[in-house]
């Protein structure tokens, strides 16, 4: 076997020009693929980071309370019991907090905007909130009443600064509006597109605005040490909550504000619990990731096919050139199968080496782009990439998959010529010598 590798490797070196050209083609395609998948990964990471800081835990216990058959409030009751259950069902959780869901208008002297808002307990949430990068003010000031934390983009639109007073107006029942004056206690750096739709109020304040009881809230957010276990934890929570006697809603992977319409039309009343995860809450944006993946997949397929063809071509010619050698080896006593393997090894070496080089270069470029913190000017691009700066992230498994995919695809092209080589009768092979 070792001799096959030796022959293959040395043959590649002998055909320097071809090896270089084809190798460069494979390297370029690999670099492209690595960069694109890193960008997609970056988007996904941004989505998760944004989602879990702004409005979701890894797993959420949330739900709706219907006071009548035609209403739908995103409220859960029996909060103390739910939090206790959460602790019991997920003992490995790093922390568990609860937030009140809200939706309303922020009105300043100059402007206004209508966005979802969350009522939080700053002290309890300190570990989560540390991911927010403060531009001005002090987050912990929210523990005092009548405070508001907004993001840079919102501060810009409303034209307010820390210390300014704004009015928060929320539609409660039957389109009544309750208002409250609050002070901006902190302005936080934007976290991409998602933070455009986010603001934080003091939990007690928002409860007051909605006239909610003490033991009701919006969602219990459970944070896990390893987010890859989300699916397993989610199903544990589902069965645990159900066993405790709560009614569960059917799984519907959508953010909560998209479910109002549906829930308002359903015929039940009272409380139903909805178990969601962080992906559900940003599911409306997931189509971007899907789109990227599909496009990347298509592009890669086409490119790899073309490269495969190139390799096939090269192998074919090589075999023709070495027909004499092939005959000799067969005459000496080499089995057909061994011959086929020999002629697959050569393109295999070329593709795997090129792929590895491509991966290394691709990773270097990705790291470089990340370090440059490129700011995205175009607002449409910002929406897609869900971030203000270009972020690329790599995962080890992705690299492995890329490597296997490219190498396999390109080597597969070698099978046919190699097989034909094996089929060559030793006689004909030898006769070309003369």
């Amino acid at each position, binding site marked *: 076997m070792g001799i096959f590798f030796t022959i293959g490797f040395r043959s590649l070196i002998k055909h320097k*020009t*071809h090896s270089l*050209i*084809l190798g460069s*083609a494979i390297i*370029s*395609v690999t670099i492209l693929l690595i960069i694109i998948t890193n960008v997609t990964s970056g988007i996904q990471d941004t989505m998760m980071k944004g989602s879990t800081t702004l409005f979701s835990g890894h797993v959420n216990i949330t739900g709706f*309370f*219907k*006071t*009548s*058959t*035609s209403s*739908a409030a995103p*409220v859960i009751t029996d909060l103390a019991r739910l939090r206790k259950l959460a602790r019991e069902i997920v003992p490995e959780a790093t922390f568990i907090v609860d937030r009140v869901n809200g939706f309303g*208008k922020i*009105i300043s002297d100059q*402007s*206004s905007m*209508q*966005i979802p808002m969350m009522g939080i307990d700053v002290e309890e949430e300190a570990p989560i909130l540390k991911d927010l990068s403060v531009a001005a003010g002090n987050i912990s000031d929210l523990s005092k009443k*009548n405070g508001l934390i907004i993001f840079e*983009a919102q501060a810009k639109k409303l034209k307010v600064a820390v210390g300014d007073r704004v*009015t928060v*107006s929320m539609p409660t*029942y*039957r*389109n*009544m*509006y*309750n*208002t*409250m004056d609050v002070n901006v206690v902190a302005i936080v750096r934007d976290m991409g597109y998602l933070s*455009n*739709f986010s603001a934080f109020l003091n939990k007690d304040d928002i409860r007051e605005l909605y*006239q*909610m*009881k003490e033991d009701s809230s919006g969602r219990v957010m459970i944070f896990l040490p390893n987010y890859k276990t989300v699916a397993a934890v989610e199903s544990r929570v589902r069965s645990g909550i159900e066993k405790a006697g709560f009614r569960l809603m059917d799984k519907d992977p959508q953010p909560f504000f998209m479910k*109002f319409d*549906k829930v*308002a*039309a*359903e*015929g*039940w*009343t*009272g409380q139903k619990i909805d178990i969601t995860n962080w992906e559900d809450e940003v599911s409306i944006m997931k189509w971007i990731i899907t789109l990227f993946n599909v496009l990347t997949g298509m*592009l890669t397929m*086409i490119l790899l096919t*073309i*490269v495969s*063809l*190139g390799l096939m*071509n*090269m192998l074919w*010619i090589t075999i023709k050139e070495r027909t004499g050698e092939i005959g000799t080896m067969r005459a000496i006593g080499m089995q057909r199968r061994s011959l086929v393997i020999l002629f697959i090894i050569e393109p295999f070496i070329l593709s795997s080496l090129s792929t590895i080089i491509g991966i290394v270069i691709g990773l270097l470029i990705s790291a470089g782009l990340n370090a440059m913190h490129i700011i995205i000017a175009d*607002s*449409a*691009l910002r929406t*897609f990439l869900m971030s203000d700066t270009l972020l690329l992230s790599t995962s080890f498994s992705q690299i492995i998959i890329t490597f296997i995919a490219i190498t396999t695809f390109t080597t597969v092209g070698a099978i046919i010529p190699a097989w034909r080589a094996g089929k060559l009768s030793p006689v004909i092979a030898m006769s070309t010598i003369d």
Partner: protein
Amino acid sequence: MIIIKMALRNLFSHKMKTLIVGTVLILGSFFAVVGVTFVFAISEGMKNSLTHSITGDLQIYSKLAKDKFSIFGDENGSYPDIDYVENFATIKNILEKEVSNIEAIVPMGGNFAMVNPGNILDKKLEELRQCFKEKIFDAAKILELKEHVHAIILDIEAQFFNNTASIVSVSAEDSAKVRADLDTARAESFWKDFDAKFERKIEFLSNKIAPLIFDDNVLYVSYMGTIPETFARSFSQFEIVKGTNIPPGHRGMVLTDRFYEEEVKHRVARRLDKIKRSLLEDHETIKGSKTLQDKITSNISQSAEVYNQLTPKRAEEIVVKLQAFLSSKESDIKKLLEDFLKVDDANFISRYDFFYSEIAPYIVLYKVKVGEVFPITTFSKYGTSHSLNIKVYGTYRFKSFERSPIATGFNLIDLMSFRDLFGLLTPERKKENSEMEAEMALEDVSISDMFKKSDSKKESEGASLSKLKSTVFTSGFKEDFASQGDKVFSNADLENGIFLNAAILLKNPAKMAATMRAIDSVSEKEKLNIQVIDWKNAAGIIGQLILFIRVLLFSFIGIVFGVSIFIIMNAFIMAMLERYKEIGTMRAIGAQKQFVLSMLFFEVLIQSVFFACLGILLSWLVIVIVGGRGIPAWNDIATFFFSGSRLYLFFDWWYAAGVLLLAVIVSAIAGLYPAYQATKIPPVSALGKTH
């Protein structure tokens, strides 16, 4: 001539190389043509949707605007602050006179409102009121409605004390008030003299009992204030579907038919309509489509929307009819309806017909019906609210893209009402407000008290908010509609007022840039203080999306052809090596370098043209077959991009020509280096062994 012959023969003899290069070219050209066709179909589709309906070719708005204009709203999902322009008539006259390419100017202004069309009790009380007002006294119907109202009151009682109290903190005082009101409403004495004192009784129920139902069935209505006949006239694809357009001089709204059928229509009915369309027009089956199955499931879980709206008497009748129709002995209307709504391919049509003949007439099929008046409330950027009672005159759509979500997002309202709702706190406005508040007979506001903050932190502004709210839904206000809201106004009134932005339709869209410059200079000269942007910029993020898609496509094609160059070059080099002896021989016999070059050139040309054409032919087949039938949109996002439920592709010879040219250029570049090398082959190599 001999060169061409040789070139052809060479291609045939070196089969392997020809095949490889050929396949690469076929793949590349196929992908390029299909890709370009696909993307251009999408971008042209979206462009048409926009320019022929919402944006027009150009948009003008105030130069003093604080934000960038975007017709769909900005990044934060709210409407951009673009200030307003003083006088539409002035602007229109000047521009039409001085800029020749303008076909029409349509004033617009976008805003959105929340509409609560009233809960079931509101609706039934309204029906009851109408009955009493009729000349002919329909005792049976009145009895039916009274029974229903009674049933609803019992429901309210159960729900309020069991459910509402769980999440809302109600003070003991308020709780006692509610119980007292409910007791009154249930008392025999209340109902005994109902007919005699129906006005007061209905008002009591409307003000005290109806608010106890918490209804989250709010309609979010995004609308555009415009001059209705101008709009209808300027956009050629405009057509009225139901009812009529807003009559000139009157206040009113025309909803988009899509909005009417999607949001306003009863959910269960809407889903049945969609299933029918999928089955008949798109030839799908329930069995084979998860989307349709999901719709059926939703219908079943939301069947409460049907039986809650039926009067008890009607419910009894329908039970009998359903039992016969379904051959069932079940007597519970809820279960019967759930069974009924579990449709499949076999029984769908008959059940659909049954629904519309026997059930639909007795439920609230449309939350707001064409011809009805309903209250609409908006909030200005200052946080003030403004309300109007508006009559819905009809629905409209744009003929060729009725299924596109882009073109159908804007319900139309007359410009006068728009201005009122916009909330400019001009002195006139303030006077009007206080006049209106005095007119309204504000009696008791205890319900609103219960739900607003009793804390003094609340702004007085907010207090008047709730006050305004609670009166809006009573009939008293509607009665005043005829006297106050329906004053006829003149065209001059319409045009001599503010507008936010206006769409400009051009006679010749190709001259867009020049027209924009003309408008800018006229604005300077006449001090109009307006700025102009093209449709793509006006479409904000959507316009940029279109650009983005195109950029993506062209980069893809570029990459594919770039990589192809490598591969083709390699193939050529290999071929040259094979033909070392052959070319050396030719040179030895006496062929000049030029000859070799020409021969190779023709080979490359013939090869690239032939295979590119094959690829183009293949793409033509695919486009005609698949694109002709249309690519179905599989979800809402796809529907948005496809500007409809299907994307149709059209083969364009210009694209094909472009791709052909590209293929030839790519081959030429790839062949450059090998061809150059080939000419350097010495004649001496004709003899002796191969390289």
